[in-house]
Each structure stands twice: as C-alpha cells, then as structure tokens.
C-alpha cells in the first residue's frame, strides 16, 4: 500500500467543499483517486500540484445528471413530508398526554398551528437550501451560528405567548391514534429510504467499508423522532 500524497487536512477540506457543492460519493471518490494518482506519478504532494483544496474543489466540474437531480428532488420532497408529518404527530401526542391525565378532550390552539407553520417553513428551507445552510453552519463563526440558533429557539419560545384566540377540541382516542400514526409509521416503513452515498474509489471491488456503521446510524436517525416523542410524553406525564 503506497503512502498517500494527500494529508488528512487537505483531503478533509477537499471532501467537505465537494459535499457542500452537492457532489455524490462516487464523484468525490473519483476526484480523490485522480488527485492521488497524479501525485503518485509526479512524485509530489497534493498541496503542491493542486494548491488549496477548497479552491481546487470549487474548480472541479460537479455534474448532476438529469436522473440524479430528479432523485434528489424527489428525496427532498419525501424528507420534507416525513418531517412535517412526524412533527405534527409529535405535537399531537404531546397534547394528548395532559388530556388523558385530566380526562377530557384534546385541545389545539393557535399556538400549535403557528408552531407547525414555523417548523414546516424551517424544514422546507433547510431541505431546499441545504447547501447554503450547511455552508453557513460549517464556515460561520461559532458566535454567529450560536446566535442564529438562539434567535430560532427564542422565536419558538415567543410563540408560546400567543393568546389562545381559538381552541379546537378533538376526542382523545382519534387524536391519539392519528398522532401516534403520524409519528411512528414513517419510521416503521423506513420512509423515505436512506440514500447510500458513501465515497467509493472508482476501481474499488468492494463497497463494504463502514456498512455496519452506516446501518446503525441510519437506524438511529430513523427512530430518533419517535424516541424523542416518547421521552417528551413521559416528561409531560410526570411533570405536568
């Protein structure tokens, strides 16, 4: 095994910039192998032959074929729909808990509607402008990113002060069933299916490196929202 001509720092910066530009794992693997192959032939390091990794990554042609663009757009829409569905499900079951505790119907107020609208907008922007958001988080200063997160959380807290102009009462049973269904079903059916976008060398015979890790992390992501919902319902039950 030859010693790599790419330092970890050069490689990581190169991969990060290509990911931010929307390159697929296969494209990144191709570009990495190209850099390493050239440096091996030239007997030089990547920094000398290719310069700054971010500048070079920005000069690389990142082409998304028509098919992959459609897949990405379809996956984005499915992800938005699933996130909104599970958010509505979570908020529903959180409203069901006090209703069950006190006996009576589940009530939804303007606060719930506004929260769903804000979170839905947030998710749509996050998915539609994922590259811009990721670049902002990755390259922004800790202070700016932290302040931005604080502003978002503050906005959500302020929503709680909206007067209960209207309130809609729903029977507990149907509300609980709908909430649990919206929360659990997308995770149960693994929808949308995770996209395997590992970085793969162009001549790699096997693509198994990290599969187990990817499966474990994919399962964690898949069940994160329902698990968080269970914990939040338990807290709401014991700490009314």
């Amino acid at each position: 095994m030859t010693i790599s001509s790419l330092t970890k720092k050069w490689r990581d910066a190169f991969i990060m910039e290509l990911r931010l530009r929307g390159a697929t794992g296969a494209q990144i693997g191709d570009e990495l192998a190209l850099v390493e192959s050239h440096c091996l032939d030239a007997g030089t390091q990547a920094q000398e032959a290719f310069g700054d990794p971010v500048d070079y990554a920005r000069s690389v042609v990142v082409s998304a074929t028509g098919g992959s663009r459609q897949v990405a757009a379809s996956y984005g829409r499915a992800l938005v729909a699933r996130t909104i569905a599970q958010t509505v499900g979570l908020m529903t079951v959180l409203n069901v808990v006090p209703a069950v505790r006190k006996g009576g119907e589940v009530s939804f107020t303007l606060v719930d509607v506004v929260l769903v609208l804000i979170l839905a907008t947030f998710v749509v922007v996050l998915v539609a402008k994922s590259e811009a958001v990721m670049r902002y988080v990755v390259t922004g200063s800790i202070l700016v990113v932290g302040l931005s997160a604080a502003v978002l959380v503050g906005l959500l807290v302020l929503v709680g002060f909206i007067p209960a102009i209207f309130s809609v009462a729903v029977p507990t049973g149907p509300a609980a069933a709908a909430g649990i269904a919206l929360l659990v079903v997308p995770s149960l059916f693994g929808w949308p299916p995770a996209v395997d976008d590992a970085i793969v060398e162009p001549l790699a015979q096997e693509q198994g490196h990290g599969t187990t890790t990817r499966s474990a992390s994919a399962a964690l992501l898949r069940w994160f929202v329902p698990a968080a919902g269970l914990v939040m319902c338990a807290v709401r039950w014991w700490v009314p």
Partner: protein
Amino acid sequence: MEHPVNDPGWPGEWLRGVLGICVLGILQSGPTYGYAIAAALAEGGLGTIKGGTLYPLLGRLEEAGLVTVEWRAGDGGPGRKYFSLTPAGTAELARQAAHWQAFTEVTRSFVDSHTHPEESPS
C-alpha cells in the same frame, strides 16, 4: 524576469487561451492519462501545467462530450484515469486548429514588423 530553462514563462492569459486545443491535440495520438498529458505539454515547450489547472480543463472537456474517460488499474495505488477523444472531440480539434491557424496569421501580421524592425515600411 528570469525563468528556469524548463519554464518558458508564458503569460497566463496566453496559456488559458491555448491549453484546451493543445490538450485535444495530445489526445489525438490516443488515450492517455493526466500526468502524461502534463509531461507532453512541458516537453512541447508550454512549461509546467499543474494538476489544479489541467484536471478542471479535462473535466470541462468531458462535460462537453469531447473526451471520454476510463479508469485502468495500475501497479497498486488508485489506478489511472485515461482520457480519449470522442468523434465530437476530433471534429472540435479540427475546427479549432483551423481557426487557430487563421488567428495566428492575423496576429503575426501585427507582430512580425516589431520583431524585425529593419523590415518595417517606415
């Protein structure tokens, strides 16, 4: 400005204008890989062309359908990416070569009198 013997020091804006056609010309001889292209450019007198300049150009040529690529295994390591001209690339090379020939004839008419001032009409 002094330049090393193996680096003619061509202005960058000149190189940017001709690099594409020179690379297409090299590929006319048959499929080859990036480092070999860079070596051929250097041996031909264009100087050192770094990977950071060459491979984005090759990527644009591929995107334009003028070259195709194929990875071939080497003796260990990541292998080599071979580039070869497509029929469209061959046609584009012929078109650019004729155009370049005409362009150089035009520019030489302005430049020749300055390289041989004893021959200028005035």
